């Protein structure tokens, strides 16, 4: 801030507006002066106006080096400003839409920019960056010092400017402008410094300086948006510090009438002033929050206040404002609100849980009001809710208490029995004793912030019901949108797809809190999930034509959630979720490696196939066959996950190893379906047991070494009968490892090493339970050795090739020699013939 001012001082004022010579007014005094001293005026005749103007555009009295530095600085600052503008949160582009001229240049409304750029960004970051009292003070002190310096320099400039003024009168206009600028700036500075002083005083001694709060609130009503912002932020800092750790209850009239001591009166005055100015501040915030220019600042203030003091008066209003902005289109505001709500949920100790209930209910209402069309973030905050498990089991506690009570009663009775012969006085004293004890207990309870268990339980159940209400509403809404879609489609082909942005976080939340769902809801929930997992395809043939509304990932997530819900609520009953298996079976087919998330698929495989205890033989075989088939065309990570699942299933289900045998038909186990139907929709009816897992043979030639070894291991499973150890790797793990692998395996041998490790790990985990550090060491060792071996191998190969080449050459030369010899012989033979002829 100060630096910028300095720049302004040293750098020249803008050139004066061009005024034709005849319009220039020359004062009488000047005329007289010139007339009297003609000698002086001689310099005017030699005056080079051009050079002067040039000179003025540069700076009169400054060294060139310094000047250059200054310009450099300014350039840098401009660049920085631009950067800030691009990344920054401050500039309201909406307010300053650029104007495009005819020649295609963009003109920004500079006034707006200057306004928002002028200082506050630095100021703000300074303000909320250092929450410490000390740091705030420091910045303020600095500010004041700079202000003083600034004024001094301003005066200096004032002195400097007249020097030129003597020569060029038209610059008076400029001077006026500059002065005006200075006065506004001064006003701005003075206001700022006043704010700083007030804030400082409040922070140092809030009790005695409490009345300053009103002044500060008054400053916030200023016309200058920058000042308003500064005021809001400094008030925020002040309030954050001085708000007490309890709720303020204003004294009733009766209490006011009572005579009180001086300190109490002072305290009352302090509290009432604090509260009233806090109220005024909040009202101002609420008002400004609706204005786009101030929205971010206001929301930041609201969020910070709520985060710091969720127990204080008017927290409902704060909460209301926060939740209202939770699905704002502005990213920064949304993030702020979300993080505030999250911290509300996680730090329940600060407000005793009341705000949690309130916030959750408000979000539920918001979802209801907006018909589930919100940003996913607004629901995702639920994930940070935490529910106390022990509160869910209140019986035990009660029983304990009952037991205790019984004991007490017994003892009392005993005592009573013992004391029956005693006189009445003693008994009355005992009674009074117990009475006082009860009173004390009640008072203690009221005084201490710890809530009753029952109360907390009630609050939790309220929260839960609101959360689940929201979730079910979203599910229903999604259902509805799916159900209505086919009808719409028949009417118009280009029906608008109603988005369901909240669906994914909703499923996530359901998965997380699945253990808390009431059993009564479960049936409905499962039915809903089933329809959603099927992607609405069971509503008739018409919908099969239209593209599925939900993505494969979402439908897979539905299956996963259903399984989680079932598993978490499964006490004694082992329920087989057949329909979801059917959906999964079909979804595996629809999965596309690039489009859908591999992690979700892997998780579905893990939860549904690997962790479930028993399966039908037919179903298992069908899944094995389909996974093996599709792992041929998946990416290596997904196919690794699929293969891990296949291995797991084969290890568990001995009968399914028939698939590994080399004859089709399946024999007696194949059931009523004598032929494999690859396109069957139902895993139970696919007749997979009648097929052979020929895919493994192909996969054992996979380009990725670990997949090929995995496939080979599976196909040799039947031979190695004694292999009982279940591999520990889950599909998700395998997927993760492989996707990491893919990033890492640029050098080829790296992969082979991994493969070695993996092989060792999966095949006999009992033998090598070596800690990771040693395995790492061994792997590095392996690498060296491998490199050596590979080197020697290639040397050998090259030798062999060289050898071959040499041999070929030898053959050639011998052949040519032989030919030559033959030729010679022929020659010799022909010579005698010639001779004979001759």
């Amino acid at each position, binding site marked *: 801030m100060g630096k910028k001012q300095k720049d302004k001082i040293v750098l020249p004022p803008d050139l004066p507006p061009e005024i034709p010579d005849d319009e220039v007014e020359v004062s009488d005094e000047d005329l007289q002066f010139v007339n009297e001293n003609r000698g002086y005026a001689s310099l005017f005749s030699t005056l080079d106006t051009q050079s002067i103007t040039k000179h003025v555009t540069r700076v009169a009295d400054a060294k060139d080096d310094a000047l250059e530095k200054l310009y450099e600085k300014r350039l840098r600052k401009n660049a920085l400003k631009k950067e800030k503008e691009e990344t920054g949160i401050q500039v309201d582009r909406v307010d300053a839409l650029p104007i495009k001229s005819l020649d295609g240049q963009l003109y920004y409304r500079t006034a707006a920019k200057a306004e928002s750029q002028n200082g506050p960004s630095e100021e703000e970051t300074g303000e909320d960056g250092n929450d410490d009292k000390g740091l705030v003070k420091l910045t303020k002190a600095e500010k004041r010092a700079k202000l003083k310096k600034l004024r001094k320099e301003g005066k200096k400039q004032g002195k400097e400017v007249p020097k030129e003024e003597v020569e060029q009168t038209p610059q008076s206009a400029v001077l006026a402008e500059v002065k005006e600028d200075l006065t506004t700036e001064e006003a701005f500075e003075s206001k700022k410094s006043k704010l700083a002083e007030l804030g400082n005083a409040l922070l140092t001694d809030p009790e005695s300086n409490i009345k300053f709060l009103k002044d500060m609130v008054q400053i916030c009503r200023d016309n200058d948006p920058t000042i308003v912002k500064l005021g809001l932020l400094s008030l925020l800092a002040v309030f954050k510090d001085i708000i007490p750790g309890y709720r303020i209850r204003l004294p009733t009239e009766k209490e006011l009438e009572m005579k009180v001591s001086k300190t109490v009166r002072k305290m009352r005055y302090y509290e009432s002033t604090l509260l009233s100015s806090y109220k005024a501040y909040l009202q101002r915030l609420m008002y400004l929050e609706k204005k786009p220019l101030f929205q971010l600042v206001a929301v930041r203030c609201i969020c910070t206040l709520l985060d710091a003091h969720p127990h204080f008066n008017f927290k409902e209003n704060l909460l209301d404002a926060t939740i209202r902005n939770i699905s704002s289109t502005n990213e920064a505001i949304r993030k702020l609100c979300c993080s505030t709500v999250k911290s509300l949920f996680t730090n329940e100790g600060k407000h005793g849980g009341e705000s949690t209930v309130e916030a959750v209910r408000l979000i539920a209402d918001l979802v209801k009001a907006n018909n589930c069309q919100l940003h996913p973030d607004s629901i995702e905050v639920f994930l940070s809710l935490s529910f106390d498990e022990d509160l869910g089991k209140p019986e035990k506690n009660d029983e304990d208490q009952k037991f205790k009570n019984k004991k007490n009663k017994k003892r009392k009775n005993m005592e009573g029995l013992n004391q029956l012969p005693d006189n009445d006085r003693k008994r009355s004293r005992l009674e009074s004793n117990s009475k006082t004890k009860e009173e004390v207990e009640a008072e203690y309870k009221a005084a201490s912030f710890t809530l009753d268990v029952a109360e907390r339980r009630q609050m939790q159940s309220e929260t839960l019901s609101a959360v689940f209400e929201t979730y079910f509403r979203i599910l229903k809404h999604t259902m509805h949108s799916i159900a209505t879609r086919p009808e719409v489609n028949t009417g118009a082909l280009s029906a608008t797809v109603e988005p369901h942005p909240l669906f994914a976080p909703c499923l996530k939340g359901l998965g997380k809190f699945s253990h808390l769902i009431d059993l009564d809801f479960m049936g409905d929930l*499962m*039915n809903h999930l089933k329809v959603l997992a099927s992607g609405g395809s069971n509503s008739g043939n018409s919908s099969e034509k239209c593209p599925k509304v939900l993505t494969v990932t979402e439908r897979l997530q539905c299956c996963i959630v259903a399984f989680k819900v079932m598993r978490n609520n499964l*006490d*004694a009953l*082992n*329920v*087989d979720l*057949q329909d979801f298996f059917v959906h999964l079976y079909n979804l595996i087919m629809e999965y596309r490696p690039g489009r859908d998330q591999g992690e979700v698929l892997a998780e579905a495989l893990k939860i549904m196939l690997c962790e479930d205890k028993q399966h039908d033989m037919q179903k298992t075989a069908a899944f094995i066959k389909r996974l093996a088939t599709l792992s041929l065309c998946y990416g290596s990570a997904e196919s690794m996950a699929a293969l891990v699942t296949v291995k797991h299933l084969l290890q568990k289900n001995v009968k399914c190893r028939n698939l590994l045998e080399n004859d089709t038909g399946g024999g007696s186990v194949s059931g009523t379906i004598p032929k494999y139907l690859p396109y069957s929709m139902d895993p*139970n009816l696919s007749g997979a047991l009648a097929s052979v897992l020929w895919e493994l043979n192909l996969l054992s030639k996979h380009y990725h070494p670990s997949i090929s070894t995995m496939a080979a291991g599976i196909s040799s499973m039947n031979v190695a009968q004694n292999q009982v150890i279940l591999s520990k790797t889950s599909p998700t793990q395998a997927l993760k490892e492989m996707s990491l692998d893919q990033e890492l395996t640029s050098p080829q041998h790296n992969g082979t090493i991994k493969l070695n490790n993996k092989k060792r790990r999966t095949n006999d985990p009992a033998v090598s339970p070596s800690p990771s550090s040693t395995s790492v060491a061994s792997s590095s060792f392996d690498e060296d050795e491998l490199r050596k071996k590979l080197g020697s191998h290639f040397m050998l190969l090259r030798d062999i090739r060289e050898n071959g080449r040499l041999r070929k050459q030898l053959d050639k030369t011998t052949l040519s020699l032989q030919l030559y010899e033959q030729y010679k012989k022929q020659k010799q033979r022909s010579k005698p013939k010639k001779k004979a002829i001759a």
Partner: protein
Amino acid sequence: MRPLDEKETTAVFEKLFKFVGNNLKNIVENPSHEGPDPNPGRYCFRLHKNKIYYASESLVKRATNVARPNLVSLGTCIGKYTHGGNFHLTVQALNLLAANAKHKVWLKPQSEMSFLYGNHVLKSALGRITENIAPGDGVVVFSMADVPLGFGVAAKSTQDCRKLDPNGIVVLHQADVGEYLRMEDEL
């Protein structure tokens, strides 16, 4: 031996539908590979002496050569008409039902015998149960090793089963493989 008339067909199909749901289509359209015909035929239902048989077309064609009094059985007997005119599935239909069953119940090993002696399935015997069974649905009973043991009618929905006390009846007994020994003469 004659094909079923309309009333009989609906009766049989309704009964089967309770157990197999939409897989009924599978039962009817299942291609048969019996006989020397190169193109597979279908299976069909035939009524013979109050019993309903499920047999392949080629078999039915050949069975016409046998005089009605002399024909004892053909294909798979799946049920019979009682004297009262009701249709009952018999235990021989179990294979057909088990392959296409919609609702299944798996029994714990220790309670298999109890079911095979003709008792109902109790909550305590449940090893596993498919989701959303409604009361009145047909349920096929399996052992934990996926061997079909019999079938029955659900007395309680899956949801209710959770809250049921261990001695509550979940599946009402209709037929079990123990009948092959107990009622050898009648079958």
